[in-house]
Each structure stands twice: as structure tokens, then as C-alpha cells.
């Protein structure tokens, strides 16, 4: 996602990372009990994952996150008027890049070619690449409790 942010920045695309709640609280990164702790976790996340985009922190009780569906790793794209034009319940860089190309390159090109376009909504199932090993490394980083609870929840 950092690379996409850099690639599209010159075309008027802004990118932010919104830090939410710990989906898998563990000994090292437990559940949030204060904003001070939440800011510390966000700072640590920037260092661990090398997030180069601006990081914003949600309210302690997750008001924004909950209003937008509270999935652990969503991506939304808004236009300048605050209208969502893309939302996905999981982040997939291929999907996000395709969406940006559609809005920035393909749609303007169709208009330039004379097409008279009207908006409509579409839903479709997409497929993301899973990196199970990386996910487990993340759980281990949070602590053994996070690994144990995930395995128990998944019946592993």
C-alpha cells in the first residue's frame, strides 16, 4: 500500500493509514485501555511495518472504525466530496490499484473519447493472495496469547 500511495500521489491521490483496535491482543500489544497506549502502538506499528503514509488514530472506542464496518483491514476510497467510491472488507493491493486506475485513467479516457457516463453501483467477489506465514509472524509479534487464541478460535 505504501508503493501505491507513492505511485499515485502525483495524480492527486492521498493515502492514510487509520489505526484501529488490536484484533489479536497479546502480551506485547494488548487491548487498548487509553489513548496514550493507542498512540504508542501506532508509533510502534509505523516502525515495525515501515508505514510511510500518514497514520491517523481513531477514538479509543473506535467510533469511525465501527461506523465503517469495523473489519480489521478494510480499504475505502473517497472522492473530494466525501463520497465513498470503493470499499473492500479486506485490503488487497491489486484490487486497490485496479480501482484507482479505473477512476483516474480509464473513466476520464472514456469521457475524453465522447462517452456519456452515469454512475452506478456494482458488487463482485474478488480474490486476495493469502500469506499465512506472514500472518502468523504478526500474531507471534503480538505475543503467544494471540497465537493461542487464534488457533482456538479457528479450531486448529
Amino acid at each position, binding site marked *: 500500500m505504501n508503493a501505491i500511495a507513492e505511485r499515485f500521489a502525483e495524480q492527486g491521490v492521498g493515502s492514510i493509514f487509520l489505526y484501529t483496535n488490536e484484533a489479536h491482543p497479546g502480551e506485547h500489544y494488548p*487491548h487498548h485501555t487509553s489513548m496514550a497506549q493507542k498512540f504508542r502502538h501506532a*508509533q510502534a506499528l509505523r516502525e515495525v511495518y515501515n508505514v510511510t503514509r500518514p497514520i491517523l488514530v481513531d477514538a479509543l472506542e473506535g467510533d469511525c472504525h465501527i461506523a465503517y464496518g469495523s473489519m480489521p483491514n478494510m480499504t475505502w476510497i473517497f*472522492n473530494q466530496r466525501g463520497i465513498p467510491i470503493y470499499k473492500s472488507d479486506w485490503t488487497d493491493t491489486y484490487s486497490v490499484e485496479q480501482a484507482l486506475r479505473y477512476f483516474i485513467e480509464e473513466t476520464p479516457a472514456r469521457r475524453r473519447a465522447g462517452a456519456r457516463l452515469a454512475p452506478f453501483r456494482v458488487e463482485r467477489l474478488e480474490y486476495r493472495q493469502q500469506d499465512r506465514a506472514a500472518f502468523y509472524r504478526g500474531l507471534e509479534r503480538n505475543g503467544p496469547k494471540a497465537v493461542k487464541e487464534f488457533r482456538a478460535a479457528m479450531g486448529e
Partner: protein
Amino acid sequence: MSQITNYNYEAFTPENYLPLMRFDESPSIGVPAPDFPLWRMEDQSQTHLSEYWSQYRYLVVEFGSFT
């Protein structure tokens, strides 16, 4: 304020995380979305989501945490 009382749950259990997974109830595509106060990580100053989307032609927002 949110209606979810266990947002910052202590343990990843189905009874804790499943009530949070409400993407189907999230704002619709194509209509103005709700705005919320947010805080900049760098200096902990308050801002709003709208302050960011109004700056750009398009704004990509990734929600996330360590896992």
C-alpha cells in the same frame, strides 16, 4: 458513541470479534459518508476524516492494526 461495548476486547474469541464484523451495515457507495474526529499519530492533534478527503482528488484509507 458506538453501540459496541466490547470494542477493545481482551481476547480473540468469536463472541468478542464476530459482533464487530458488520461490513454489510457500513455506509453505501455513492452517497456522502459520515465524518469523524481522528488524531494525528505524530503530534496527537485532532483532525477529521473530512480534512483529508477534501484535500485530494481521491483519498485511500486503509484501516488496520498489528494483525
